[in-house]
C-alpha cells in the first residue's frame, strides 16, 4: 500500500472526522452565543451582548433547587447502578453459566428501547402500584435504563480480567475481602470508574424518563424543556452551555484521571 495513498486517505479520514466533530458541536456554539445576549430573542450578528442571563441563572434559588434535585438523582443512580452493574458484569463476562447468553440479551433490551415509551410504561406501572412519584421514583426509572449501560461498560473491563489473578492472591494467603480490595477492585477499577462517569452523566442529562417519573420534583432537562416550550428565555442556552461544559469537564477530567492513575500504577510497579 503506497505511503502516499495511505497518507492521502488518512488525511481524508481526519478531515471528515473533524468535520463531524464540528457538526456535533456547532449547536453548542450557537447556544453559547445565544446565552451571551441581553435580548430575549436571538438574532445574529448579536447586537446586545451581555452576561445578564448568566447572572440571573446563577442567582436563582429555583435553579439551585433544580441542581439539587438533578444531582441527588444522579448521585443515587451512580452509586446503586455501579453496585448492581458490577455484579451484573461479573455474571455477564466473567462466569460461564447456563443461560448466560439469554441473560446478556435481556440486559441489552432496555438499551434498545425507546426511552419515552419506557418512561410512560414506568409511569403506568407506578400508577398501577399506587406509588407517589418523586425524585426517588425517577432514580428507579433511571436505573432501569442506566444499569444495563453501566453493566456493558464494566463488562468490557471484566472480559480482560484474568481470574488467575484472584486465585494467585488466594494462594498467597489473602482473605476474600483482601483479594477483592487488593486485586479485583483495583484491576477492574478503570471500568468501574468509567461506569460511574457514564451513570452520573446519563442520569444528569436524561429527559424522557424523568419527564414521566419525577412527580413534583423537576430536573434540569425537564425545566429546560418546559422553558423552551412556553417561557423561553436565554436562561435556556445558559443552562445548556453549562451542561455541555460540565459534561466535557467531567469526561475529559475523568479520562485524565484514569490515565494518571494507570501511569502511577505502572510507576509503582517499577519501583
Amino acid at each position, binding site marked *: 500500500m503506497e505511503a502516499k495513498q495511505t497518507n492521502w486517505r488518512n488525511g481524508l479520514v481526519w478531515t471528515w472526522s473533524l468535520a463531524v466533530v464540528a457538526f456535533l458541536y456547532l449547536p453548542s456554539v450557537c447556544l453559547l452565543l445565544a446565552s451571551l445576549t441581553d*435580548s430575549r430573542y*436571538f438574532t445574529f450578528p448579536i447586537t446586545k451582548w451581555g452576561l445578564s442571563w448568566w447572572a440571573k441563572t446563577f442567582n436563582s*434559588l429555583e435553579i439551585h433547587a433544580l441542581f439539587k434535585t438533578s444531582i441527588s438523582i444522579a448521585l443515587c443512580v451512580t*452509586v446503586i447502578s455501579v453496585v448492581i452493574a458490577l*455484579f451484573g458484569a461479573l455474571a455477564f463476562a466473567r462466569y460461564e453459566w447456563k443461560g448466560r447468553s439469554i441473560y446478556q440479551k435481556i440486559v441489552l433490551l432496555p438499551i434498545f428501547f425507546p426511552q419515552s415509551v419506557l418512561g410512560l410504561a414506568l409511569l403506568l406501572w407506578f400508577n398501577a402500584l399506587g406509588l407517589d412519584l418523586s425524585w426517588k421514583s425517577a432514580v428507579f426509572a433511571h436505573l432501569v435504563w442506566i444499569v444495563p449501560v453501566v453493566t456493558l461498560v464494566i463488562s468490557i473491563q471484566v472480559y480482560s480480567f484474568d481470574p488467575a489473578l484472584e486465585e494467585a492472591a488466594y494462594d498467597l494467603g489473602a482473605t476474600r475481602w483482601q483479594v477483592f480490595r487488593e486485586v479485583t477492585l483495583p484491576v477492574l477499577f478503570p471500568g468501574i470508574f468509567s461506569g460511574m462517569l457514564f451513570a452520573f452523566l446519563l442520569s444528569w442529562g436524561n429527559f424522557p424518563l424523568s419527564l414521566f417519573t419525577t412527580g413534583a420534583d423537576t430536573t434540569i432537562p425537564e425545566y429546560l424543556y418546559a422553558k423552551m*416550550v412556553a*417561557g423561553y428565555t436565554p436562561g435556556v442556552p445558559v443552562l445548556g452551555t453549562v451542561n455541555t461544559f460540565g459534561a466535557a469537564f467531567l469526561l475529559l477530567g475523568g479520562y485524565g484521571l484514569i490515565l494518571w492513575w494507570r501511569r502511577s500504577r505502572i510507576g509503582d510497579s517499577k519501583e
Partner: protein
Amino acid sequence: MMERRTSRRSFMQQSAGLAALAAGVGGLSARAFADRSKELNILCWEGYNSAQVLDPFRESTGATVKAESLTNDPTMIDRLRAGETKVWDLINVNNPWARKVMFPEKLIKPLDRASMEPYFEKMLPMFKPPYKWAMDDSGKELLGMCQRFGPYSYVVNTDKISRKTAEDQGWDLFNDAANAGKYGILDSADWNVFNICVIAGFDPFKPRGEAEVAKFTETAKKVFKNAKVVGDIATMNQALIAGEIDFHMTGGTYSASPARADGHQNIRGITPLKGPLEGGKGGISWIEVTSTVNNPDLSPLAVEFLKHVQDPAVAHTVAFAEGTFNPVAQMANPDCFKLFTKDELDAIQWDSLDEEMARSVEYDVVPDYDKLLEIMNSAKREVSGG
C-alpha cells in the same frame, strides 16, 4: 476449596446488591405521612413556576416549593385524575375547569370564602364577586382565585399585515389561499380545536351537527397543510421575529408579550372585530383560576401562597414573571398598577386590552372535544409531510 471460597464471596457481593435495590424501591413510598407544613407543590401554567415568583416565598417561609409547569389544561387535570391529588397542593388552569370539571369530580376542594373573597373586591370589575368561574354551580363554594388573563386569538407581525387588516379580515386570514406557507400554528391542542372551529365558521362551545363536523375536518386539513410551522411559543416568536412567518394562529398577549418586551413592538396579538362566536364576537380570552387540590394531606402553605400572590408587588411580579407577561386582575388596585412601567404596559398591549377583552368570549369546555381533537390530529397526520 477454591470454588467454595469464591462462592461465598459472590454471595456477599450479591446480598449487598439486593440491599441497594431494596433501598431504591423502598424509598419510593417513604413520604406517605411526612410533615407537609414546609412544602408546597404547584401544578401550573408557566409563570408561577418562575424564580421571581417562588424565590421570595421560599425565603419568607423557608419552605421547599416545587412547581411544575405544563402548557395545557387537560393534561394537568389528567394528572390529578391519575392519582396525583396526593402530590399537588395547588392547580392553576383556565377558567371553566374548576367549576365544570374538577369540582364535580372532587379533584379540588373549596376555599374559605370569607377570608378569600375580599381579594376579589380589589380586582378589575369583571372579577367582582360573585365571579362566575370562581364559584361552583350552586353559587355557594369559592373554588379558586383569579389572577392572569388575556385575549388569545392570533398574533401578527404588523410590519407584514397591519393591525387593521388583521382585525378586519379576521379568521379568514387562515382561509385565504394566498397566505399558504406564511403562517405558523402554536401547538396547543385545545386552543387549536377552538380556532379551527372558528375558522370553519362555527362556535366551538356550542353543540354541533354533522355538517359542522365535516366543515371542521376539511378546515383542519387545510389549515395544517398550509401552515409553515407548528411549534411552541419560543418557536413562533423566533419565527415571527426572524421573518420565517408573518402571523400565527393561537396566540395573544400571553405568547406575544415576551417578543414585545424584547423591543419587537411589531409583534402583536390581534382580536378580530367579528366572528361566529356568541354575540358575533371573534376572539376567545382566558382567565386563570388557581384552586387547592383535594389532597388528603394538603399543605397549609397552599392558602398562604394564594394570599401571597394577591399582594400588589407579588401580583406585578406574577404579571412579569420570567417567561411570558400578562395583565393581572389586581391591576384595578392603584398600588399594583403604579408598579407597571410604560414599557411593561406596552408589552401587554394595555392600550387595547379592554376593547379586545370585550370582543372575546371566555374560554370554555368544548362539547365533543375528544372527537374534534381526534379529527384534528388525524388531519394533521394526513397532511403531514406535505
